[in-house]
């Protein structure tokens, strides 16, 4: 069956698979039409293009790139088994394999070990739907940084001089002393929880607060959240 361009959401963005037999001009036209039909959805999307065995020349690929750029779609990589296509892609500064989008990154080298990415594992059933995050099972030391679009959970301490930036919540099962930013994309409902909450600086969405000077206080778990436009902390007991 020819003619059907396929779209699939993957961790790195959108994977676009084009039909093998159609002419390149038709492929481009079809793709443009599809994007225009759902312009809002595609705007700003990161796209990987799978052309399989097809040999795509440099000017053909450049043509496609222009069309995508006009529609604010970022072509990140081109997947192909053809050497011609791979060469053309490289010359245009495109990757020839799937690359991680720049927004999710961690400077802790082996974080990926703790992140569940195995899509082939049988999915476990859950009655309650959660949201995604990373779990890091070690202490963050000075100079180390964890950034994630979802939540960040640390089993260990977060020492002074380290930083966490999360699109969602931050939970630290240990002492929190570094700089922490929850709801980095502006979500004020995000919270920061720690067994001992003494961050150098605590940010939620666009709000910033610092810990009160530490006198001989009793250590207890706390939860920081936003109420009436102010960051507040309360004992984390419920």
């Amino acid at each position: 069956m020819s003619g059907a361009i396929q779209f699939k959401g993957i961790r790195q963005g959108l994977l676009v698979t084009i039909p093998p037999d159609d002419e390149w001009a038709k492929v481009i036209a079809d793709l443009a039409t599809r994007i225009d039909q759902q312009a809002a959805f595609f705007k700003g999307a990161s796209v990987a293009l799978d052309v399989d065995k097809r040999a795509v020349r440099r000017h053909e690929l450049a043509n496609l790139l222009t069309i995508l750029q006009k529609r604010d779609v970022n072509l990140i990589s081109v997947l192909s088994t053809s050497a011609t296509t791979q060469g053309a892609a490289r010359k245009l500064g495109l990757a020839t394999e799937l690359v991680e989008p720049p927004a999710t990154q961690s400077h802790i080298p082996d974080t990926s070990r703790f992140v569940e990415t195995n899509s082939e594992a049988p999915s476990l059933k859950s009655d309650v739907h959660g949201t995604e995050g990373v779990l890091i099972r070690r202490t963050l030391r000075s100079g180390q940084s964890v950034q994630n679009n979802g939540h960040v959970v640390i089993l260990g301490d977060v020492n002074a001089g380290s930083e966490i930036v999360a699109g969602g919540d931050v939970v630290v099962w240990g002492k929190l002393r570094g700089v922490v930013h929850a709801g980095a994309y502006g979500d004020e409902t995000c919270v920061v929880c720690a067994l001992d909450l003494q961050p150098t600086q605590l940010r939620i969405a666009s709000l910033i607060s610092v810990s009160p000077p530490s006198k001989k206080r009793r250590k207890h778990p706390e939860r920081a959240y936003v109420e009436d436009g102010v960051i507040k902390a309360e004992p984390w007991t419920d």
Partner: protein
Amino acid sequence: MTGRVITITSGKGGVGKTTTTANLAMALAALEKKVVAIDADIGLRNLDLMMGLENRIVYDLVDVVEGRCKLKQAMVKHKDYPSLALIPASQVRDKTAISPQDMITVANELKDVHDFVLIDSPAGIEWGFKNAVAPADEVLVVTNPEVSAVRDADRIIGLLEAEEKPVPVRLIVNRIKLGMVRRGDMLSVEDVVSLLSIKLIGVVPDDEVIIKSSNEGVAATGRPKQAFEDIARRLMGEKVPFMSLDSNGNVLERFRKLFGGG
């Protein structure tokens, strides 16, 4: 004989890496171990001064790496301890004169004929640090009971833990001022250890004798000497209790101890 390569590092400068390396090397040699100390602080060499060997240097580490001399020719024998030698740094070159691979090659050759290869790392986390830790089997992180030194030590430990093959890292807290700790004006050893959460191998009290002995290029005396000897013994696997930090404290306490009280 396969010796152990131990790198002494700190992140922050001026916390006592070189003093520690020199005294630890001398303490190990005094325990009849075969020891070689390498000064990896190319361009800012100091270890030779603290070991009192400055005037005996002919070749240095860069000469070895660049093939101008044999490894043996660059080894400066210590005047008091025949089983101790120094490989000095070059004073006229910089850190980029050697590579981590060079350090591994040199250390591997040395550990065949020594019990201990001690490497004195430069301050910082750049090239010089990478050179110094590349061949390490173990690392000793030296810090002072000050927040800036502890912060930098934390950074160093983080970098070491992130290595492909992490090596054991132990902590030396240098320059503890007993009076200040007792008054609560200084971070205590417990504070530092709880912040860094790594194993402690030694506590060295702050003492004026260190300045004198370093200037003269001889081993420390008094309580610091005891502290370094304790570290040397712990390195060799002995269980040595940490010295009581109260014992030269106030007179009343000493009397109470003397007469077997509390």
